[in-house]
């Protein structure tokens, strides 16, 4: 009996064979079973379903994004530890901890997880948590779409991790250049896992981009003109523009690649008239804006953090805005610098090199503005400010090596070496990660009503910074010695100590993450002592005017804005207690299970495509479309809280 019409190309031979992957393949399902058992034992399934899975509250969706991202951060760092352990042992006469095939899958999944499921996850967490509160609105423009975005992100996350258990992942690196990722060289399901996890998560990101763009355009509190928005909101606005323009390019390039793989087409194959160079152009036309998508919100965060903790108005608000918009434009005309060594010729290389350098100008201006916000301030070094200090040093070094590589003739000697690896970790860890970690500490009390423990937070920053230097400074040196990225063995014995120090660096970063997990656990335990008022940092922007944790309706009364840093000046003038007549009825979106179910069906759809189970592909696709239509037919998606009840809740929260 031939079962392949039913199960596609699934086969027991796709189960993992090596100890390290078998461990993960057994460990992950066991963890899930343990969690399910705990939920059953404590009778929390109903709570989980009602309060979280079906929620459309941006704050809760933000917390879910953040939780997934932090778990994925742990996995990504574990991948890094595997990579650097393998290279530490990879010298002449050394041994292998696991096979080269596994090694190549691990660095591919490390890149994918860190960019798509950690950095993007934390970014959307912060958008959801902070943006509606900062612009004085009750929710995002499309709350249901927001839930769909999250569950698509979640589905992509399961696909990446699921590949560990069954089928394996791509070996092609995080951007999977063809022809290596074409059928000819990678016939297995690994590349399809990679394509569909990015595809599904990417569509979620695009929808979120639209959502926050509209939210910022249409839902600002009365009086909040563009030039009165907090810089973080500005950074989110330009980021969403980048998302809306860039992500369709990712979707298109991955779709073309999967047409090659599923239907034998020849967009990017080396035979049959395909052109892999076209893919490389397309994917980087998305890929370069993508790094600015990640880093601009971090710039926004530090603008809030530095002003708040220096107790001073942000220096050069207008130049900050101009710089953000300038970076937004230039980020679309630099993509070719990722392949100066493709032989495009001097004119093309020089053009893209110079465009790349120009981005350093507005970025440098921002750094000066932060410095002069500190100047004549009164700086308290709470842990978000400590993260800023680490960022200012680390990101600047990363910027310098970035400008170096923007000179084509220098790039000829460092491209695709460990120097490049060190550079982009330098800007992504030093810029994006430090920024987002600062933001978590900063906005945590607003979400949960208590602060995170300061000592453990500073210890975490210390370990991250030292671990970063140990892990990546040796890689700069190795790159200049001729060490290429993505190798797990080498013939020069003098490289061994550098790789060992780098591996130690990963362990130190791991200690930083351990401090953070401990910090969260300890802070929950001591939450009474760490209880935070509505305004624990003596903040400047509107989110600090509501009680902590922020109520589900955000604002009992929508605030009126007449200047930048509205809340700071309201505090100086004396905050007025609202009159009873100020309270109005509130309309809020109802919870819905459609977001979750659509996300999970999209997961089934992707899984069916990966395994070539055609009947299920058709069935799940019809199901997704049907559910979207059903949801749009539903006219009763909102409910009203009467003014009297709003007043009662608000007075209790402020008491």
């Amino acid at each position, binding site marked *: 009996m031939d079962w392949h019409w039913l199960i596609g190309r699934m086969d027991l031979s796709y189960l993992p064979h090596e100890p390290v992957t078998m461990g993960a393949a057994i460990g992950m399902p066991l963890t899930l079973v343990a969690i399910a058992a705990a939920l059953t034992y404590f009778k929390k399934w109903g709570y989980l379903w009602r309060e979280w899975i079906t929620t459309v509250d941006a704050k809760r969706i933000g917390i879910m994004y953040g939780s997934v991202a932090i778990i994925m951060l742990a996995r990504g760092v574990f991948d890094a530890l595997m990579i650097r352990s393998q290279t530490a042992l990879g010298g002449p006469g050394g041994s292998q901890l696991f096979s080269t095939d596994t090694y*190549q899958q691990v660095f591919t999944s490390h890149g994918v997880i860190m960019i798509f499921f950690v950095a993007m996850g934390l970014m959307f967490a912060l958008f959801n948590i902070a943006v509606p509160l900062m612009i004085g609105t009750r929710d995002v423009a499309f709350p249901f779409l927001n839930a769909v975005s999250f569950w698509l992100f979640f589905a992509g996350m399961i696909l990446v991790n699921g590949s560990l258990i069954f089928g394996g992942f791509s070996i*092609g*690196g995080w951007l999977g*250049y063809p022809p*290596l990722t074409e059928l000819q060289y990678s016939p297995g399901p690994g590349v399809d896992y990679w394509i569909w996890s990015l595809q599904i998560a990417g569509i979620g990101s695009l929808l979120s981009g639209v959502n926050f763009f509209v939210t910022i355009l249409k839902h600002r509190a009365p009086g909040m003109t563009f030039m009165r928005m907090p810089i973080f909101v500005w950074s989110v606005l330009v980021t969403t523009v980048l998302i809306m323009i860039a992500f369709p390019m990712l979707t298109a390039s991955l779709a073309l690649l999967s047409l090659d793989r599923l239907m034998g087409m020849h967009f990017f194959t*080396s*035979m049959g*008239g395909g052109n*892999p*160079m076209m893919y490389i152009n397309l994917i980087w036309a998305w890929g370069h804006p993508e790094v600015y998508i990640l880093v601009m919100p971090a710039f926004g965060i530090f603008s809030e953090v530095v002003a708040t903790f*220096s*107790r*001073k*108005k942000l220096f*050069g*608000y207008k130049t900050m805005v101009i710089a953000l918009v300038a970076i937004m434009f230039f980020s679309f005309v630099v993509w070719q610098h990722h392949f100066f*060594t*493709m*032989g495009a*010729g*001097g*004119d093309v290389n*020089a053009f893209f*090199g*110079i465009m790349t*350098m*120009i981005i350093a*100008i507005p970025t440098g201006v921002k*750094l*000066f503005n932060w*410095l002069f916000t500190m100047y*004549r*301030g*009164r*700086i*308290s*070094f709470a842990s978000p400010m400590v993260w800023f200090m680490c960022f200012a*040093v680390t990101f*600047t070094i990363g910027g*310098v090596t970035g*400008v*170096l590589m923007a*000179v084509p*003739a*220098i790039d*000829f*000697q460092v*491209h695709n*070496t460990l120097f490049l690896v060190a550079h982009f970790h330098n800007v992504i860890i030093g810029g994006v990660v430090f920024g987002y970690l600062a933001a978590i500490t900063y906005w945590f009390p607003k979400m949960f009503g208590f602060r995170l423990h300061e000592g453990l937070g500073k210890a975490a920053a*210390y370990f991250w910074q030292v671990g970063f230097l*140990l892990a990546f400074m040796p890689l700069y040196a190795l*790159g200049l*010695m*001729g060490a*290429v*990225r*993505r190798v797990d063995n080498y*013939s020069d014995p*003098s490289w061994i100590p550098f790789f060992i*120090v780098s591996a130690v660096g990963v362990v130190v970063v791991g200690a930083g993450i351990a401090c953070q997990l401990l910090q969260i656990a300890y802070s929950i335990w001591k939450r009474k002592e760490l209880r935070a008022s509505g305004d624990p940092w003596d903040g400047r922007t509107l989110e600090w005017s509501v009680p902590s944790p922020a109520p589900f309706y955000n604002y009992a009364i929508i605030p009126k804005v007449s200047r930048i840093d509205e809340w700071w000046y309201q505090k100086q003038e004396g905050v007025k207690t609202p009159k009873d007549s100020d309270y109005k009825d509130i309309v809020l979106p109802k919870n819905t299970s459609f977001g979750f179910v659509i996300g999970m069906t999209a997961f089934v759809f992707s899984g069916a495509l990966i395994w070539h189970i055609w009947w299920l592909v058709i069935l799940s696709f019809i199901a997704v479309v049907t559910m979207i239509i059903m949801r749009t037919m539903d006219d009763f998606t909102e409910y009203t809280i009467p003014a009297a009840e709003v007043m009662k809740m608000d007075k209790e929260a402020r008491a």
Partner: protein
Amino acid sequence: MKKYRAVVLVACTTIALVTLGYLLVRNAHFDVLQPAGAVAKSERTLLISAFSIMMLVVIPVFIMLVTFAWKYRAGNDKKVDYRPEWSEHKLLEAAWWGIPILIILILGTTAWITAHTLDPYRKLDSKTAPVNVQVVALEWKWLFIYPDLGVASVNELPVPVNTPIHFTISADAPMSAFWVPALGTQIYAMNGMSSQLNLIADHTGTFPGYNTNINGNGYAKMRFNVYAKSDKDFSSWVASARKSPNMMDEQALQKISQPGTMNETAYMLMDNNLYDKVIMKYMKGTMSDKDSASTSTQHDMSNMEGM
């Protein structure tokens, strides 16, 4: 002492890290910074000067960062200026748009000039006639063909010293890249295309070469050695390769094209059109004859734009 605790911690950590860095770097050899060829030397000089120019801004920034953080800290006992509303200053803002613009102007000009002078397709200035080498990236070894000398080799690349080497580079494997850090400039090796590269070795020696673009399981092992030899030694290598029992023709190529790694081997070249055949393999039935005739010169055209 509590207020100095952070400062002491940062200072001690910095000293420890710098010491560790010194111990690591002390005996290391940096192919990129200690090059053996004119191209790599120019690129090294460029790297160091661009880095130095940027330090002109970076060092003052770091000094300001530390000074401001120290001077304006909340617990500072000395009375320092606190101006919570001071947030605009035309002259200062003009200065830090101006300074980076000036630096990028210098670096941009340098980038423009060197993108052309160090263009991999540009022939090197030398009185000596160049040696032509055709490079084919295979899964997972390098084939070097010396069409004018009637020899070929796998994973070993003997070259005469002080003589320009003109490489034409292609692949019969997923996209790969050819790089000899001691000599300079890497370039991609792609199916059905012919990239060009011009390098020169200034002194004799053995220099490692690498593939820098992942092309499958044996990628890390796709290493080779450049042997820069005196003219006499090079000639005798060519003579011995010509007498080698190993013949390089289509059949032999097919055999070594199977995925796997290989040791250094020298061959007598039996087929002068081998390189073109590798390229044409990817042209079959894909384009009209007119198109395919121009394909292998696609890169020469972009080179002409660059001259």
